[in-house]
């Protein structure tokens, strides 16, 4: 029995090492750092709540970056869910070459985000980008500057995100959920005289709500952590237009060497995300329907 336990722990060891060494340990360390002034090269110096006070009172990019991040999440998550759901419904039809279509829609999600960001900076280049060439071609003489415009920079990143994520795992989850809906329910609705819209509204959507909820939770968490695309494509500019909260943390930690303050920013945001998730969890009781539960 003891030997069996040993084997068990040995098998668990990689995960345990990863969890304690790479997740829990650094997380707790960063919690401690958030109460210190820490520039990495010298030992951390405790400063109490000073970092948290600075966040609310003196950091000019704190609220601004938070606002930009929520704007990004507020637009990209609903559009992303709608897009993924639409694609999943289309790919759930019985048409010839379905496997090819599914693959094609899934491919963008396999493109590394850095490569995707570089690709889109070319596509949306104000001067020679394909999109602006097209817009000029159809008579729009002064198309948007996209990444170079303060007004259009975030919408450009949202567009890029949609291209990459709409056909990805979120769509697969919807597709799986769609295929998990028993045909008997559609048959019953049909017999009762429900038209296609009514079948969608009263059968498909309610039974998809667990998948929608799951995607919503992950989508919001992911969108609030937006970083790489802005880091690569715009560097936070132009004029702070894409200086998201995640980028702000990175800048403070690795560019400005305010590791203690960056830790405080990160922990505050972790609390915000956890709170939002709990609220969604609570609200889900009102609209998520678990078939057979």
């Amino acid at each position, binding site marked *: 029995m003891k030997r069996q336990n040993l084997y068990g722990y040995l098998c668990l060891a990689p995960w345990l090492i990863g969890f304690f060494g790479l997740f829990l340990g650094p997380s707790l360390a960063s919690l401690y750092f958030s109460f210190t002034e820490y520039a990495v090269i010298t030992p951390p110096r405790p400063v109490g709540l000073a970092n948290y006070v600075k966040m609310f009172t003196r950091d000019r990019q704190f609220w601004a970056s938070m606002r930009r991040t929520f704007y990004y999440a507020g637009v990209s998550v609903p559009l992303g869910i709608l897009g993924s759901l639409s694609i999943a419904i289309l790919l759930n039809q019985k048409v010839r070459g379905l496997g090819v279509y599914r693959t094609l829609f899934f491919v963008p999600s396999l493109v590394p985000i850095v490569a995707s960001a570089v690709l889109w900076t070319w596509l949306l280049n104000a001067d020679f980008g394909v999109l602006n060439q097209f817009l000029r071609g159809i008579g729009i003489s002064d198309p948007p500057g996209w990444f*170079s415009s303060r007004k259009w920079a975030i919408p450009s990143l949202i567009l890029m995100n949609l291209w990459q994520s709409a056909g990805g795992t979120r769509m697969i989850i919807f597709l799986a959920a769609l295929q998990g809906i028993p045909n008997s329910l559609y048959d019953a609705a049909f017999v009762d005289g429900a038209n296609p819209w009514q079948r969608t509204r009263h059968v498909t959507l309610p039974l998809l709500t667990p998948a929608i909820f799951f995607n919503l939770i992950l989508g919001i968490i992911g969108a609030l952590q937006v970083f790489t695309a802005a880091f690569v494509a715009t560097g936070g500019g132009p004029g702070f237009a894409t200086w998201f909260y995640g980028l702000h943390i990175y800048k403070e930690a690795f*560019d400005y060497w305010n590791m203690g303050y960056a830790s405080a920013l990160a922990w505050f945001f972790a609390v915000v995300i956890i709170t939002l998730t709990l609220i969604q969890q609570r609200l889900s009781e009102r609209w998520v329907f678990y078939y057979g539960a």
Partner: protein
Amino acid sequence: MEQKSMSRRKLLKLMGLGAAATTLAACQPEVVEKVVTKEVEKVVKETVEVEIEKEVETEVTRVVGEEPVEISGEIIWDTFRGVGTGWNEERISTFEEQHPDMTVEFRPLAGASQQENYAKMYAMQAAGDLGDVIAFDPSHYHFWRAIESDIIAPLDEFASAEPDGFFDQWYEWFIEIQYYQGELYGLPSWGWSGPDCMVTNKYDFDQAGIELPEPTSHDTSMDQIAEWAHELYEEGGEHFGLGLGYGEGQIVVLCRAFNGFFLNEEGTECLILEDEGAQEAFRWIYDMAVEDQILPRPGELDFEPALTAGKLSMYNQGSLHVRNWRDIIEDQEIEDRAEAWQILYPEREDGRYPSQLRGGTWNVHQGTEYPQASWEFVKHLSNTEGILGFNLYGGNYSTVRPDVMDILVARDPIHEWFLDSLENGIPARAPANSRGREYTDAISQWITIMMDPEEGMEFEEGLDMVQEEIQAVLDMPMPS
């Protein structure tokens, strides 16, 4: 800093130059001499072929203090500079030849960016694993911090043992930045004069019937440049006469071109609300960017490709970029529609040329077991051959030594265009609190907002905003 590439043939040729020159260096006197030495002529003739013939005429300040000293041990060199070019290996092998009892271990830092490599070095320091010879550059704002954090060592003890005139090998200012609170902490590595001109496509001017002054002339007024910008602008942004970058260096030099300063000498105050020259510079930019809207919006054009594509006639950068663009013209064989030129900014009332001398350093780690050997290696990196190779195939730009400039001019006369700013330029000013990255980010981001015509910001409102935001950074405490 700009990265350059070089053919394998050239690389091998220049490695030969390094080896031969180092051998000769061992025979050199210990005093500074301004002579035309046979050795130099020989080295140059043997290794750099015909184009270098002119060099034999060149008066060169020879490297001094190169007599091999008795040192032994093993040192580690951590750097991200020159990696993959063969320069680092050449420096090590020639050093080890001079000092048979020494070995140098080269540990290349391969971060994605310079800043990432500094991060690595800080982490290595924290882990007690930082090498003996390292670099925390003043113009990247890490130098003072590394000193304050006891990472790099003062070198006066070793420098004082060098012969008189030792420091005359380098341009004065590139040595000045190696000092902090009266103590020497390094020797020069890279260095240049900053964005000291308008990189210009002369072809556009010729087509417009505009005669440009000589590339070394300082007779062009800022008003004249603005006038040309208007003249060459085509309605609807089909073609731009001028593109302005709002990076820290570019903005600082524009303020200097109007006889002003952006930052006070102590690095504690942003001067744009009180310095008339700086305000004039901002007004000059604002009028073209916001009022007349004849400049591309930030990010709308990549300036160098736009210049190549014939969509832009000039933009604010340095002589270095003029040379690089000239090379692009030759590579792409577009001489029929492009000619590299530079428009230097006008001489200031104080007689100096608007520029921003910036530079790097080679340092010795405080914890090294071999301080003397590390110092000798730093000298080896910064000597004539080291700096010449650093330029020619080391992937870096270094105009820190007059003798190297002589050789570069002999190789390619376009380097003459650089000399004015190096000899009579104005050093960079840095924030006293070492908040360099916050400072440069704040400048580029807030000025972009002010100069964005879509924002529609009034001039005074924009200026107040920029001043307030930059000053807020300057008022931060120094990171501990």
